[in-house]
């Protein structure tokens, strides 16, 4: 009985609360669908600004959009006021119902929030912006003229433009750099290794001796690399060693595809990949690779790199930049390692992973709804974003707190206002960062923050090799490719099968060995999984791309 009266009380309370939240809910609701925005705009129109709705798929660290000064100014300059829905998680779950219900806002922003496949599948939902660009977006037009490849990325196979790209310009030419603990080398009287055999000897020394000087000869991890996923390879993994065998990876070749002299290939069935895996196994067997390398997660991988205090734990590894990889205290112990040769007498042309395009270009950063009521206004806003001075604020933050206007036409990115914060976190907190549409024109004069400068400097030892990669003949232009939807389906299904064979085998052969015996059966398996079909399809697209350039 007591329970019942409590229940009744609760229901009464709830009804009252429901009444309150119900009414506030409806006013909070007005901006999210194109229909109601017109109805609620009676007062707004009087102010002269066009009301728009938008969704942004942003990084979890990013602060609320209404606190971004540059954004408020951009909206003012375009004569619009945008009601943003900010999403930082579960976009893939929400996207399906959003698109299928046909209920999308005027603008959608975010890296890869909408894909080429979506345009094909939900035809009629997105606005073809070709004409609007000519009328209202001179900045975008300039970008297309100055960097024609941006137009290529934006144009769908049917010739229409549904999404606009970004061009970041300053990002490095490759995602992965390799590092070695110079302090340990010095302590043990060793030279920087120049080939795999020397590397092996150095790693052995790291393991046997007390390289970090803390009295324990057994706590060093000679080599560590980032967790290898089940869907393919990625940054900070030893696949960059394929460069020693002469293979040039394209945008890190997540699924193994690369181009050699105009021919599309895949390294997972290549003899040179076999060579690399054998080397890795030799190292693993001798205890030179972190035994948990395949089971640890990324946080643990990074934790290893940070050692403890000023005692380092890792000898040789891969990473983005030394402060990202090693924290605040240890970077000074590490040095960047130039590409290694396979052996002292190898005369193969060294290579690395050519990632510039992947790092700096991306398509589908912003889209417009076909049902937007004021498309001209929406386009004007988009145009603001592609003004290089606004773009730099999209990437690094507002002028004032994040960027300094030097008064002479040049700008500098300022260090974080919070001294404990590193520049990467600061950037992501303050603004859209890499997730925003932008065009950082070559004419822009901007001095970079310390973490970017550091990365570019650490890339120097790789530069000579990177510079002589022939983008024309040895690169697969993944970011610029437009596939038909049937082909995308075929490619992705086959790749899924292929990776489900290749990745476990990679892990197994590195940890347990046996590649000699298993290789032939494995190659046959890969072919059954559909690899030849994918190579044919991709070759077709590649050839077509070359001729239409």
């Amino acid at each position, binding site marked *: 009985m007591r329970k019942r009266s409590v229940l009744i009380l609760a*229901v009464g309370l709830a009804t009252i609360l*429901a009444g309150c939240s119900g009414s506030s809910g409806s006013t909070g609701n007005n901006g999210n669908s194109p229909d109601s925005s017109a109805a609620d705009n009676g007062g707004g129109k009087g102010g002269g600004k066009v009301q728009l709705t938008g969704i942004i798929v942003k990084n*979890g660290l990013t602060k609320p959009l209404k606190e971004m000064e540059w954004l408020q100014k951009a909206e003012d300059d375009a004569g619009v006021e945008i009601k943003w829905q900010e999403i930082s998680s579960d976009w893939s779950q*929400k996207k399906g119902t959003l698109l299928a219900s046909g209920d999308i806002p005027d603008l959608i922003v975010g890296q890869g929030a909408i894909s080429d496949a979506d345009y094909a599948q939900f035809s009629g939902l997105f606005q073809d912006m070709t004409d609007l660009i000519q009328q209202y977006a001179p900045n975008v037009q300039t970008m297309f003229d100055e960097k024609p490849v941006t137009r290529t990325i934006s144009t769908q196979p049917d010739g229409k433009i549904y999404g606009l790209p970004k061009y970041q310009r300053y990002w490095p030419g490759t995602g992965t750099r390799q590092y070695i603990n110079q302090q340990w080398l010095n302590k043990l009287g060793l030279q920087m290794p120049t080939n795999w055999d020397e590397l092996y000897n150095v790693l052995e020394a790291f393991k046997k001796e007390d390289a970090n000087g803390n009295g324990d000869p057994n706590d060093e991890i000679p080599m560590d690399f980032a967790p290898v996923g089940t869907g393919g390879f990625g940054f900070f993994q030893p696949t960059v060693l394929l460069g020693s065998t002469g293979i040039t990876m394209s945008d890190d070749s997540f699924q193994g595809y690369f181009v050699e002299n105009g021919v599309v290939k895949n390294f997972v069935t290549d003899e040179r990949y076999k060579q690399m895996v054998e080397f890795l196994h030799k190292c693993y067997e001798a205890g030179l690779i972190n035994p948990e390398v395949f089971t640890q997660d990324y946080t643990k991988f990074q934790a290893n790199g940070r050692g403890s205090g000023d005692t380092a734990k890792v000898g040789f590894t891969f990473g*983005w930049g030394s402060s990202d990889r090693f924290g605040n205290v240890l970077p000074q112990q590490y040095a960047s390692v130039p590409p290694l040769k396979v052996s002292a007498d190898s005369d193969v042309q060294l290579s690395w992973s050519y990632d510039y395009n992947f790092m700096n270009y991306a398509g589908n950063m912003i889209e417009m709804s076909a049902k937007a009521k004021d498309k001209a206004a929406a386009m004007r806003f988009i145009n603001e974003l592609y003004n290089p001075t606004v773009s730099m604020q999209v990437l690094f933050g507002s002028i004032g707190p994040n960027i300094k206007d030097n008064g002479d036409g040049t700008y500098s990115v300022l260090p974080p206002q919070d001294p404990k914060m590193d520049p990467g976190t600061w950037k992501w907190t303050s603004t859209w960062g890499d997730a925003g549409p932008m065009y950082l024109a070559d004419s822009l004069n901007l001095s970079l923050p310390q973490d970017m400068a550091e990365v570019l400097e650490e890339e120097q030892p790789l530069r000579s090799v990177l510079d002589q990669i022939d983008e024309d003949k040895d690169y697969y232009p993944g970011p610029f490719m437009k596939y038909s939807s049937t082909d995308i389906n075929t490619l992705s299904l086959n790749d899924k099968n292929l990776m489900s064979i290749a990745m476990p085998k990679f892990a197994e052969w590195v940890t347990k060995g046996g590649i000699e015996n298993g290789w032939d059966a494995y190659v046959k398996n890969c072919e059954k999984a559909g690899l030849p079909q994918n190579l044919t399809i991709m070759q077709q697209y590649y050839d077509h791309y070359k001729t239409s350039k």
Partner: protein
Amino acid sequence: MGHAESRGSEIWFRALLYAVCFIIFLIIAYPLYFIVIASISDSTLVSAGKVILIPKGISSFGYGEIFKDTRIWTGYGNTIVYTVLGTFVNLLFTIPAAYVLSRPEFKARRIIMLLFVITMFFNGGLIPTFLLMKGLHLTNTMWVFILPFSVNVYNLIIARTFFETSLPKELYEAAEMDGCSHFKYFAYVVFPLSKALISVIGLYYLVAHWNDFFTALIYIRSNELQPLQIILRDILLSNQVFANGVGQGGDVGGYAQRYADQIKYGVIIVSTLPILIVYPFIQKYFEKGVMIGSVKG
């Protein structure tokens, strides 16, 4: 089987029982304790396995991140409303239905049960359901939490089983003799006797509402209506950015990385505490003999 003997074996049994319970307690409690200390320790130390019995590198970054998000409080408020109202409606619809299905004289019970069970397996998919909600104007309102999935067939089955097995047939016959209708019988006899059942089913529904994030994920747009779990999940997943490293083409912050995992652990505590408080009130209804006493009366 003398008294002395059984006393001895009784003591052995008690000892064994307590030992087993103690082990169970440790196995469950240690990881829970771990969560508490991990929620205030330096994450890199935690994943390096250095945090075992005492917290290390104490910082409240995690809780700070969670609570500085003011949406937490609207989240709590919303979830309480949805849960209370929702559970009330759940019970209102489910318990009478279970009673009906337990009556052998109700001819349609088998076919209706079959139709209900089918819905546990076959459903039209997310998109048609979404379109239906939209058509009924339930999207982006609080009612989407209360009406649509108010009858959970699994719970319905459990309730029906309870009615079938724990209510003596004689009870109904006696009532029927006195001219009692189903309504009266249910309200005055069955309902008071089912305290244990209502508590359990009520608890199941309550917890389901409390933990539900999927409904809001798909059907709710405006921030004022978001329940607690969405906000926590948002905070949690947003901070998992670190778990994947180069998310969007660049280094993603060493500073926050040190404390990223705190949020993972802190979120559980924030989310579970209210249930912990409510449960003891419901628990006493599971006690032995609660129902039987009423029968006597």
